[in-house]
């Protein structure tokens, strides 16, 4: 099936691109493996205009409802491969369906960065977690660690400290890179202990559950730190695997390079949202939606041009 446009990614950038594409009457499809994208991890959004306070899931559902109301189907699956055949892009999805498009908007966002250490995959859901707000309740009166030094890591540690008996915050550098207000709160919290300039080398357990972490240096004379859980909050990495074979240029941090109109160096491929470098390090829902709208507008112009 040939579409004028396929949007990959169902976060705020992709969903907004679809809303605009519908209004431009561009025949398009939206494919996304994680509906709502990164914002569905946000329990409190207070900076998206029009909503004083909303959860990421609620905002995602509202955006998805708007997309669907305009007659667009959201395919909730992953894209495995994209091939370029002259001026047509051919996509293969995880459920073995093939779609073709004249233009693409890549809005694949970022994926959670993993530590990539022994035990991380084995103990996922057995003490290893990537979502403190989701899983803190399973660690009441227990000892946990959070790895990372960002706002997300420190707020996770503080959230866990409400329920857990003890929270270690482990960061590879010094000082923390979180905003000063969060650093101060972590330092003042009696349950939070910050371990600086230390890396986690492995996650140990008894098959059923996490029991300890192996550190790269001794902490209070121990090479192992006894914990019941580890929360990994070390940021995200852009989802660009599909783009490499197509020759789309990345910046040195690995994000897609876009021009002011959201086009990439490959004719017909546009990008929007967290995966793109449009706003530098500033990655917000409101910037993602803006980029999505702009990308759809540029696709509209591009398609008009190809018809001449």
């Amino acid at each position, binding site marked *: 099936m040939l579409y004028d446009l396929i949007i990959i990614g169902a976060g705020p950038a992709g969903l907004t691109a679809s809303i605009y594409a519908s209004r431009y009457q561009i025949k398009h499809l939206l494919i996304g*493996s994680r509906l709502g994208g990164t914002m*569905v991890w946000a*329990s409190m959004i207070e900076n998206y205009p029009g909503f004083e306070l909303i959860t990421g899931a609620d905002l995602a559902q509202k955006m998805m409802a708007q997309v669907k109301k305009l007659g667009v189907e959201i395919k*909730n699956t992953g894209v495995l491969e994209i091939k370029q055949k002259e001026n047509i892009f051919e996509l293969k999805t*995880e459920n073995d369906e093939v779609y073709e498009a004249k233009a693409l908007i890549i809005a694949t966002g970022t994926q959670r960065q993993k530590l990539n250490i022994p035990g991380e995959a084995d103990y996922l859901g057995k003490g290893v977690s990537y979502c403190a707000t*989701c899983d803190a309740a399973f660690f009441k009166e227990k000892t946990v660690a959070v790895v990372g030094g960002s706002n997300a890591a420190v707020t996770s540690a503080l959230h866990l400290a409400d329920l857990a008996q003890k929270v270690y915050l482990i960061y590879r550098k010094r000082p923390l890179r979180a905003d000063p207000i969060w650093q101060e709160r972590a330092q003042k919290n009696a349950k939070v202990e910050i371990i600086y300039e230390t890396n986690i080398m492995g996650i140990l357990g008894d098959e059923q559950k996490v029991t300890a972490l192996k550190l790269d240096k001794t902490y209070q004379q121990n090479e192992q730190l006894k914990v019941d859980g580890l929360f990994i909050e070390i940021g995200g990495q852009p989802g660009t695997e599909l783009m490499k074979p197509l020759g789309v240029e990345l910046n040195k941090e690995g994000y897609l390079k876009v021009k002011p109109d959201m086009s990439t160096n490959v004719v017909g491929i546009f990008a929007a949202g967290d995966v793109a470098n449009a706003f530098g390090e500033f990655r917000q829902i409101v910037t993602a939606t803006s980029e999505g709208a702009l990308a759809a507008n540029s696709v509209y112009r591009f398609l008009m041009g190809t018809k001449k």
Partner: protein
Amino acid sequence: MITFTDQNFGKEVLESKTPVLVDFWAPWCVPCQMVGPTVEELAKEFEGKVKIGKLNVDENPQVAVKYNVMSIPTVIFFKEGKEAARQIGLESKETYLKLISS
């Protein structure tokens, strides 16, 4: 969609003749709110073939502890009362479909 509980889990899941898909969730878990609608779609599509429902881990800690659920969302597929497959984290509808066909 069925609501599974500590009380009905034995009858509805362990003694079920049809396979069962259980979505473990809690009200405070924001990504869990994204799994709900997907599981509801699956419940309609598999009506009569697979029993599909949700279990609130906050209200039903016994089942959550028994199956060592320490991270949500978690979706577990049961066949003949035994765990056949488990998916941790927010995943696509396609991934949950694969769980059912496993």
